[in-house]
């Protein structure tokens, strides 16, 4: 009886944990543009990330700042200057929603630099540079760039073909998440933890499995 009750409780918590990410829904939609920059030695040294915000959130930000008061969707030059950096005031602990990995090993991304912002057709477009620390060689093993918010407050999707700057022997492809695979990955992670771990504390970090990602491969590691 006690065993049964424990089993039931564990199952409920597992189901609850599984349902929780799905119960979140995003309030902000961002189209992500990715540029991978190679240095003089052919190492991938930085990412330039472009975020195009949805019209609603753009309007909220503009109204907050009293910009585009004629509602024509175009900013004056002075207004453009004041909007720069509007999304670059990051809280401590905010990872920046961009992730880079090679062979599943995460690469540290430095704090954002060289940011810009503008308004295009009623949508705020910002860019920023994230250095790869350290710069990494890229060969047949893809450099993976992901764009996601672990809490899913923001829904990101990678749009367009990512740019590769500084090398001409590399190719890139964008992959949408394989939802069935992501779900089975979640299930597998839960099964592994089943009965052994505190699911509340150690809920598996599976957000990345649901993210759009760009995969960059090059002819030979350099």
């Amino acid at each position: 009886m006690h065993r049964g009750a424990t089993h039931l409780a564990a199952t409920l918590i597992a189901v609850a944990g599984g349902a929780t990410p799905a119960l979140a829904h995003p309030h902000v939609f961002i189209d992500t543009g990715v540029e991978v920059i190679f240095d003089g030695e052919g190492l991938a040294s930085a990412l330039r990330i472009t975020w195009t915000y949805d019209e609603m959130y753009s309007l909220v930000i503009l109204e907050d700042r009293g910009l585009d008061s004629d509602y024509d969707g175009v900013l004056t030059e002075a207004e453009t200057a004041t909007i720069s950096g509007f999304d670059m005031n990051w809280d401590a602990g905010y990872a920046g929603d961009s992730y880079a990995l090679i062979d599943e090993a995460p690469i540290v991304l430095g704090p954002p630099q060289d940011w810009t912002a503008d308004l295009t057709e009623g949508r705020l477009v910002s860019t920023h540079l994230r250095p790869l620390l350290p710069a990494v060689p890229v060969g047949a093993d893809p450099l993976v760039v992901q764009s996601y918010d672990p809490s899913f407050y923001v829904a990101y999707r990678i749009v367009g073909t990512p740019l590769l700057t500084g090398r001409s022997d590399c190719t890139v492809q964008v992959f949408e998440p394989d939802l069935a695979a992501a779900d089975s990955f979640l299930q597998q992670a839960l099964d592994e933890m089943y009965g052994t771990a505190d699911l509340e504390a150690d809920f598996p970090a599976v957000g990345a499995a649901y993210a759009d990602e760009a995969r960059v491969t090059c002819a030979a590691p350099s």
Partner: protein
Amino acid sequence: MRRTLLILGLAVALVLGLLWALGGMAQIERMALEAQREVQGRLAGAIRALRAGQPGALAALVAVAFGYGVVHAAGPGHGKLLIGAYGMASRVRPLPLAAIALAASLAQAATAVVLVYAGVWLAGWTRERLTGVADEVMLPLSHAAFAAIGLWLVWRGTRALARDRAAAPAAGHGRHGHAAHVHGPDCGHRHGPTAAEIAGVASLRDALLLVGGIALRPCMGAVFLLLLTWQMGIGPAGILGAFAIGLGTATVTLAVAGLSVWAREGAFAALPGSALQRALPLVQIAIGGLVAAVAADLFLRSL
């Protein structure tokens, strides 16, 4: 014929549940996400058109806001979970449940209006402060209310189970085995509670708890809309839009309410009466436990 129709409801719910379990809902969620992205953009366009004084802009805003409510509700959400769970786990009649679903959606819109206007008028809050209150105070509160509703279902199921057990041996002594009988005001002899009594048929307390639990969590889209329109000096249009979002949401919660009743009555039609009297408390405990576990998980994450 009626029985077949009812059992069909159970089948539909089981198929939907199976789809969800097998990951089929992921595709639907992705479609809902695309629709949300699309309609969020249109809502912004409608607000801008209204501000620019274009003719017909108000009607367009209300229409788009209604659509926003529908597609937002079509994604995963707490209100549906709660209404569905309650509809499955207690023998509430369809009309009261529908009324609860509608009231909850409209109350949710009213919460957004009160939050925004109390915030900007009384407290002079900025947008960050306001959305912060919605996310950091009201969200945990609503999750706590959800957990309470789940536990309430568990408690009621447990109590009904205990009454069943107490009543069972007494029944063996024939009609006048009074030892463990419950005597209600309306009836002389009762061999355990009837299904209707187990359910408590949507008492006012249940209704308030459900509506309150759902309404505590304002829709962020409505908050954005209200703030924007207030800042632009077209506040009344925003309030109208917020309630249009609520009505849009209600269409989906009403569908969930209907399906949950249909499925539950299907189960009643499929199982013989006495078996079901025993099964309903168990269903209540299981569903209540699930709701409480999901809510507790959400509550801990939202702190």
